[in-house]
């Protein structure tokens, strides 16, 4: 029976590298990234669009990886948590700020939060605390440690702004 399930081959660019792989039609993008490409940094929490743990960037914009099908990512540019650091391993300003401010905690929701904030701070480098809290409203942290997450985001925003000035 599994052989009869609809499948197709998709080609997409993930973290700058082109991949061509077969997927079942019903696979979510997040499942495809994890099981098809072995990129297990993207986490699936609720799998119905509430928790935000599976957030990845598709063509630069944050989307729920559990609510988009892998087959819909044909030809798209996808960025996951594995793609945020530089090729030489240097953390992004946001990742560094999360380390410095204890924004990670248990780490399960962190990939979704980092991808969400990467896109948000790129578009809103002057974001203040209420704006960052609203931007985070689609990501649930069950450690409930939002204060350190917000502190980290504000610190990253400062670093990004200073970098832009330099």
């Amino acid at each position, binding site marked *: 029976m599994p052989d009869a399930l609809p499948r197709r081959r998709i080609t997409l660019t993930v973290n700058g590298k082109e991949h061509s792989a077969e997927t079942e039609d019903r696979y979510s993008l997040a499942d495809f990234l994890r099981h098809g490409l072995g990129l297990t940094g993207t986490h699936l929490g609720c799998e119905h*669009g509430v928790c935000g743990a599976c957030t990845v960037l598709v063509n630069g914009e944050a989307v729920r990886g559990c609510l988009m099908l892998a087959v819909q990512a044909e030809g798209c540019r996808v960025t996951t948590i594995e793609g945020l650091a530089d090729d030489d391993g240097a953390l992004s300003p946001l990742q560094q700020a999360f380390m410095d401010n204890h924004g990670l905690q248990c780490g399960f929701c962190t990939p979704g939060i980092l991808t969400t904030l990467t896109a948000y701070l790129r578009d809103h480098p002057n974001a203040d605390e209420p704006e960052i809290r609203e931007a985070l409203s689609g990501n649930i942290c069950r450690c409930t440690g939002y204060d350190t997450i917000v502190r980290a985001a504000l610190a990253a925003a400062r670093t990004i702004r200073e970098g832009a000035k330099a």
Partner: protein
Amino acid sequence: MKPAPFTYHRAGSLAEAAEMAATLDNARLLSGGQSLMAMMNLRYVAVDHLIDLNPVAEIAGIAIDGGRVTLGAMTRQRAVLESDALAACCPILREALGFVGHVQTRNRGTVGGSLAHLDPAAELPGMAALLDAEITLTSRGGARTVAMADYPQGYMTPDIVDGEILTSVAFDLWPEGHGWDFREFAQRHGDFAMAGVGSLIALDADGRIGRAAVILIGVGDGPLRLRDVEDILTDEAPSGALFAAAAAMAAARPMSADALVTEAYRQHLSRVLVRRSLTRACARATEAAHA
């Protein structure tokens, strides 16, 4: 993966999508997928065929022409929120879209998807009801237009028959200088509202309310247009007593109850929200008149 098996179909054009919708059995149209994919993951919905409208660029976009706005069904919610042209002529849309889910869901979610899904707490059907929108449905046989007033047939049941594709929504603009307000009460920003209200007010030359439109969302089977409230506001001078009377009238109707919220609490929320919303919409209209 969570959904039951289905075959995915990429529609390259509206004609192709209409052909697929007319011929495939147990098929559903996929736009943003922010509700449908969740329902399929939960297996509330199981389909044999999924027709993806995302590549159909011809039904996406915002057109403002001669006092009328047309939103293509595949227009992303984020595009509506971020359109400065729309915010200039119909500012309530930006205020309401800020309450639609979260940035991640607005990046994918579409205008047409929300209208087709017709969640009672959804902001976009509420806006369509408030603005007396017309919805265009296209099938292999042609297109037809439905007034938003006739479109909801019951709880999450739009007037769409098999083979039809919601392709656009259009509405006439309110006069320049009108007042507006949208607000809602939810447990968390972006969650489904326990109650939400939208108001539009146009003042006449004497500073009286020449025209009013008010809707409630999240309190019944669909967006609730408050015609009786609009009637008692019209031709009156704005005042706290008038807004309180209008709010009491809005809250007097039967409302839904669920595991979290009683009917009485929804009525209470509606009364408070309607009074505040009318107050702000009238203040904005007055401010525009003196600008």
